[in-house]
């Protein structure tokens, strides 16, 4: 077999090379581009799905966070309310207690004054009686005779009364 010329157009080789180019194109498309594109598309889908998931998770987290914040705000409000009412109640109670105490003190004082007055009157009466009997004894010794105590009680009392008034 010989050699073809260095620079010459052989129609069959020419046509065959055109066909070869297109066959090569199809082969490259089938064996390189299609599988790689498929895998790239898959990876893109996976990445998109992951991003979607992340976005959803973030939204959920934000909703939960908002809920938490609302809850905490509520708790704060409630605590404040409780504190305020407790303070109010305590103040009322303390005022009540103070009022009660002062009332009691006033009552005690009044009672004590009444007691003192009673005691005083009692003491005065006792002293009157004592003085009456002493006077009677003295008078009896003076006039040397028995004075009927019952008869002269009224007289003596009148006398002491007068003495008291003058004193």
């Amino acid at each position, binding site marked *: *077999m*010989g*050699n*073809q*010329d*260095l*620079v*010459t*157009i*052989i*129609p*069959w*080789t*020419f*046509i*065959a*090379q*055109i066909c*070869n*180019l*297109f*066959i*090569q*194109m*199809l*082969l*490259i*498309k089938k*064996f*390189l*581009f299609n*599988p*790689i*594109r*498929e*895998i*790239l598309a*898959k*990876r893109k889908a*996976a990445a998109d799905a992951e991003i979607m998931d992340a976005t959803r998770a973030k939204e959920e987290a934000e909703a939960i966070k908002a809920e938490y914040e609302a809850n905490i705000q509520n708790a704060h409000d409630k605590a404040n309310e409780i504190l305020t009412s407790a303070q109010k109640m305590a103040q009322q109670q303390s005022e009540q207690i103070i009022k009660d105490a002062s009332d009691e003190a006033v009552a005690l004082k009044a009672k004590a004054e009444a007691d003192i007055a009673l005691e005083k009157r009692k003491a005065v009466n006792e002293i009157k009686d004592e003085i009456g009997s002493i006077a009677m004894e003295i008078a009896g010794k003076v006039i040397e005779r028995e004075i009927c105590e019952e008869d002269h009680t009224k007289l003596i009392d009148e006398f002491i009364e007068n003495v008291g008034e003058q004193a």
Partner: protein
Amino acid sequence: MEVNIVGPKIYYEIPIDIPLLGRPQISETLVVSWIVMLIITLLCIFLTRNLKVSNITKRQAFAEMLVETADKFVIGNMGEKFSYMIPFVAALFATSVLSNLISLIGLRSPTADINTEAAWAIVVFIMITAQKIKSSGFGGYLKGFTQPIPVMTPFNVLSELATPISMACRHFGNILSGVVINALIYGSLALASSALLGLIPGAVGAFLSHVPILAVGLPAVLSVYFDWFSGCMQAFIFCMLTTMYIANAAEG
């Protein structure tokens, strides 16, 4: 010593004469083209084995990088609407690069045969023309040749025809020049070493003068330019021109 630079071998010729097209023949160009196609296809299959969505292997990362580079190249030069051109340009580039580089393993590059580049250039030319007709209509396409003045028509037709011819010849010329230079270098180095070792007297010298010892080393250095650089560069230029011409044609 004689250095012969000849075209690709013809392995088999089907002895049927078909009018206009001649006898179908299986030449070295075709066989090596099939080898190139086989290598590319096996490489694609190897790269896309066990694809995973996450935790990818280096192999898969490389395959994805290739696809993304092709996407970027075509979409960057032609725009989003030409994304259907990506496999074509990728095939063109891969075939071109591998055809150029396969000379490194001692096979004859299919791109050192003008038929290959002519085939590619004609395909590109048809695509360019199709885009022009699509963007401005058949009448507009024909009218475009008479712009800016009708006298320019022959020159416009010439420049239109020059596009595929220059594309094909640029690529072919660069690769063929590598082949020619390589043959010359190997021939001259063999001559030089036989002259050098022939100085040794007696049978030893006579034997050693047939061993082209100087051909070790220097051709490898030259191959960095003529095979690697020129091969990749021409493939890139061809694809670049393809995308540019088609994109320009679509703009009207």
